[in-house]
């Protein structure tokens, strides 16, 4: 498994654990995405999916470094 695949797997697990009432809008999609739609974007490595991975990783790094 490549590092990219590993990271994607970690983020998918995080998204899977999301509460069902949460929706997120990101980028120029004019709609809010629920847990399943967010996961689909990541699984398909779309532009939105890649951005979700980037955002989640930024946060995890910040947590690790004690920034948040």
């Amino acid at each position: 498994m490549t590092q990219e695949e590993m990271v994607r797997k970690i983020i998918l697990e995080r998204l899977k654990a999301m509460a069902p009432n949460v929706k997120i809008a990101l980028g120029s999609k004019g709609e809010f995405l629920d847990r399943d739609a967010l996961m689909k974007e990541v699984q398909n490595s779309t532009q939105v999916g890649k951005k979700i991975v980037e955002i989640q990783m930024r946060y995890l790094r910040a947590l690790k470094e004690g920034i948040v």
Partner: protein
Amino acid sequence: MKTLFVRPSHDDVVSYLYFYSKELVEESRKRNFETLNKEKKDATQKIISDIILKNEPAFIMFNGHGSPNIICGHNDGFIIIKGNNHGLLKNKIVYSLSCSSAAGIGKAVADKNTAFIGYTDEFALGMDVDCQASIHRDKRARLFLEPSNLLVKSLLKGNSAVEAVEKAKRMMKENISRLRTEHSDDAKDYLPFLFNNYLILEVLGEKNARLQA
């Protein structure tokens, strides 16, 4: 002194921005700015360009989708295009609540007479499905949009561009801290996205620019 608010409302996401920015239009009027509000189908390139050229507003707020090179309006029609008409934003304070526009348009217009406040990457907006029918009750969306409103209120109050951004960032941090200590199931899920908005909000150009009614 004039202010201009550009507020499309053609999809779910910009409808949230439209709703939240209503109080900013009112605040601007209350503070005696000559307030121009172009919303919904009036948020087009033709109408906005004409208004800017004719009225030279000192402050412009854009709501809408975007990219480094484009700020969109009604039905995602292009309003500002880098390399085409971004010069319309010169000599003003501009706040663009749209994805990534600070990374391209912001950099292109920023100078000693222009302050561009915006996001260098994709702005995220969270919402609570249980409140979908009534935006005003959505406490989760409020966490994302209240700092943005504070930023504009701060500018209208006469604070400098950099002070307004600092205030908004402080509120974002407070919202992040509040979510981290909350026990509800969904709190943790919004955190990465709120934190990202905090990281990507920037002021470019004349950071000490300020408005006077």
